């Protein structure tokens, strides 16, 4: 069996104020896995994704990503481009004035040249059927377009894992269908947070439920 992409062991986490969010969570993500992460509102699903890429630090337990334990900020700097996190609110993700600049932001941070970045922008937009969006102003896009462009900014870094936080939330039927088609065609392993049953059945083959700070299969 191949080396897991992510392995979380005995994670404990609580925000400053009180109630523990995770208390002994175990989880393993392998190549090709498409996992649905479910659970009640406010149970800590988003928190779990943020812990995986080091935006939050667990109080106890271990995060292992791409074959190595990750503890300090500098360990996670390497993890983040390889595990693309799609945020719930695309307005949080798209901060550059134009679509091109936003998609270019990740690759440029990874030290790619302008020429290379330009190719990546074109290629990513084309792969999502967003040709001609290069010079659109991000805050003037519709909600659906914003979500797709946000996905483009993540895919532009060529991640090995996708962490999707409610990707179909607040999308119209047409855009939702388009997003499902796109995601279904992607080769990456995925963890998907969603309350959209139909979407989860079509995209994922494994269910994990977060309850009382622990992760339960099935």
């Amino acid at each position, binding site marked *: 069996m*191949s080396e897991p*992409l992510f392995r979380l062991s005995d994670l404990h986490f609580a925000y400053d104020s009180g109630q523990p969010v995770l208390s002994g969570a175990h989880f393993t993500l392998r*190549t*090709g896995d498409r996992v649905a992460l479910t659970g009640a509102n406010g149970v800590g699903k988003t928190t779990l994704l*943020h812990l995986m*890429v080091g*935006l939050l630090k667990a109080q106890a337990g271990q995060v292992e990503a791409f074959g190595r334990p990750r503890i300090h900020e500098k360990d996670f*700097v390497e993890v*983040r*481009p390889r595990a*693309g*996190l799609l*945020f719930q*609110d695309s*307005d*949080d*993700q798209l*901060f*550059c*004035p*134009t679509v*091109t*600049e936003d998609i*270019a*932001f*990740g690759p*440029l*941070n*990874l030290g790619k040249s*302008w*020429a290379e970045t*330009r*190719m990546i*922008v*074109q*290629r*990513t937009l*084309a*792969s999502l059927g967003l*040709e001609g969006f*290069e*010079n659109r*102003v*991000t*805050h003037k896009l519709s909600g659906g377009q914003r979500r797709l462009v946000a996905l483009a*900014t*993540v*895919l532009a*870094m*060529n*991640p*090995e894992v996708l962490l999707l936080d409610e990707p179909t939330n607040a999308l119209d039927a047409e855009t939702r269908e388009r997003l499902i088609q796109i995601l279904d*065609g*992607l*080769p*990456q*392993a995925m963890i998907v947070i969603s309350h959209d049953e139909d979407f989860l059945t079509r995209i994922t083959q494994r269910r994990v439920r977060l309850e009382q700070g622990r992760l339960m299969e099935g």
Partner: protein
Amino acid sequence: MNTSASSSAMHSLAKVSHPHASITIYLPLKKGDREGFRASEPLLKTVDARLRLAACGLFALIVVGLTQIPALLTALALAGCAALAARLERAPTLRRLAALDGFMLFVLFFLPFTVPGETVFSMNGMTASYEGVLRAVEILLKANAVVLIILALLGSLGSVELGHAMARLRLPGKFVHLFLFTVRYIEVLYREYRRLRTAMKARGFRLRCDLHTWRSVGYLFGMLLVRGIERAERILAAMRCRGFQGHFYPMTEAEPVGQRDYAFAGLSVAAVCALIVLECLHS
């Protein structure tokens, strides 16, 4: 192996990409997007944004330092010429200037009474001085000239173009990004404000002059502030997820400066020199 699988999937989609596709930032002009500007392209609008910004800054800097009325009148006339060249629409431009002047008159009202000097007239026992009136006129002329030149040179620039021009002029990065982030998120914050405000209205809230109103409005702005901070944290998190480590990379390449731009730069410098000469002649 997952990497290679995913990258090959990406490469198979690369057919439409063009290696020499140039990235120039151009904002499509939408109707109503830039109110007050006509659709046909005036010559001034084709001048490089960097030069327009630099000329604007230089002009403002010099005008603020002028003290002689003839020089100031000339400055205002020059700004007026620029406005004509930019083909600003008369009504909206005058409306903007009127708004400025209304404010300025209010601010300058007491100036003649507080500056000592030769008496011109008196009102309710207060005497207005000639020097004070002169000072007020001077300030009024300066303000109008500067605002008019800004409208003429920068008014037709989109906020994004302006941000890029600032970056290319090597203004401090923090300043440029503060500007661009403001442009990007002011609408998001405004939407949030509208949502909260509508929700308040839906529960029968009206602005009155009582403690309840003040407290509720306080909560409203407090909530906006809290949400603003939370959003800023999420944005930074999203940026870190894409490899941000505190340094921005240049986002676009500048277009080369052309003949027209040199002509514009020459004219600007000449105009500013003329103002300085006028100032020296009259002082």
